[in-house]
């Protein structure tokens, strides 16, 4: 097996619980313990009420493609073999949007509004990346 050569997430005190959860193949988001609003990316206070009280909550991993692009230009040598590859933004049913790749769907079949669900890709022993596939149910 060759080493994973693509960029890895920058793990910080604020986002570590997110990446700890993905290692367990769970998608977890911060939810404000005061106003109950989900937020992403991870932040020390609630965007709405500025409360610092927060809980990490496992979410459904289901959502809708809100937009997408297909890369044709080779920016990263480590992605060269994947060209042309997609990147999607998924609006989770809980509200926030995640950026990821859509797997097992030809680029020409991707549409805005498509229902998707999370899958996890164990790219290194320490990091599992959430990606999405077409919703199965």
């Amino acid at each position, binding site marked *: 097996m060759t080493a994973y050569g693509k960029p890895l997430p920058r793990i910080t005190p604020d986002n570590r619980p997110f990446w700890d959860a993905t290692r367990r193949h769970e998608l977890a988001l911060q939810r404000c313990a005061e106003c109950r609003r989900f937020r992403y*990316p991870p932040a020390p206070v609630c965007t709405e009420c500025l409360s610092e009280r927060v809980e990490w909550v496992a979410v459904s991993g289901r959502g809708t493609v809100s*937009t997408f692009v297909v890369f044709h230009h080779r920016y990263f040598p480590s992605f060269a073999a994947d060209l042309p590859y997609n990147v999607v*933004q998924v*609006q989770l049913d809980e509200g926030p*949007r995640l950026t990821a790749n859509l797997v097992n769907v030809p680029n020409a079949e991707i549409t*805005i509004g498509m229902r998707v669900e999370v899958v996890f890709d164990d790219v290194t022993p320490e990091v599992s990346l959430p990606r999405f596939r077409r919703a199965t149910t």
Partner: protein
Amino acid sequence: MTIRDRTAIIGVGTSRFSKAPTETPMRLAAQAFKSALADGGVSRDEVDGLVINIGWPLGVDYDRFAEALGLRIRFADQSWTHGRFVGPTLQHAAMAVATGLARCVACVCGVSFIQERGLLGGPGDFEGTREEGGTHEENPVYGLTAPAAGAALSVQRYFALYGATSAELGAVPIAFRKHAALNPAAIMRSPLTLEDHQASRFVVEPLHLFDCCLVSDGAAVVLVTSAERARDGARTPVFIAGMQGMRAGPDEFLFATPGLGIGQQREFRYTPTEEQLSVYRMAGVTQKDVDALYTYDAFSPLVWFVLERFGFCGLGEAAAWTQKGRIELHGELPMNTSGGLLSEAHVSGWNSIAEIVRQLRGDCGERQVRGARVMQWATAWGDSTIFHS
């Protein structure tokens, strides 16, 4: 108290624009600076303010520029190295003059995007690794990099919401290429057809190559001083009539109108209020008085977004609105008459500020907007400055 008509541009200068790395940004900036002094009839020692929006590693920093050019600066400012700060940087210059912090402020931009093109995406995209994602939604973990990606994410959703097409988007670079053909300083002057646009390779789909700006080297310098001083200058003064600042917050994604729903941007139906477009009130004009509009056209969709953001047309209407020559030189609203970033050069938008000054002085020859009195700089991210002669 308002800043309306209290400050003016007294001189402009530009270097040669090039797609081949020829000179250092410092050399280009020095040329443009000397040319601006000569243009305005301003002595070097009169310049006591210096503002810069694109510094190292793309461009020249304020400290080295002041040392190298022997300037005694009492108001220096430099923003984050992103072209979005053209408007705010110019506004700082005007505010510094209006408040007496400086008499004459040089806005300096000398850049080499060619030498540093690695910063524009790929392994050199250090900003994309910011914990919360890059400023154009970059996320290198998933291969999402380069400013073009941000514009592509937005226009894909725009296409889907409003039924617009890539062929309609082609009207934007085609218009600006026509303008560049009339501009001897422009880099890309050969005609661009819709077929060329549609046949060009995708960079980040749905953006074609010709939806993306040039990667070039160049410099531009704009000298801002008091209205009184400018009236005694060598050339017709170009007054700064009104301004509004750059927007930020949960409703904003840099490369979209508010409400489009990109990144974490809130989704809603955007209709600009008078309060959101206060630049017109300050300048005492309306959109109908604007003889030409200039914007940061790094990618063609930004032209659609600025038209909707500033109420030149309604939400979702820009695709149809920009057809049939409407934004061309002899159209209802000429835009980016020098060719802009798409066809003249990527001098971070300062080439368009220089163009506004030259147009309002009536210096533009074949590409002159006839009878031009009022021109506007405005961006998809909400800042704007209005000028008049």
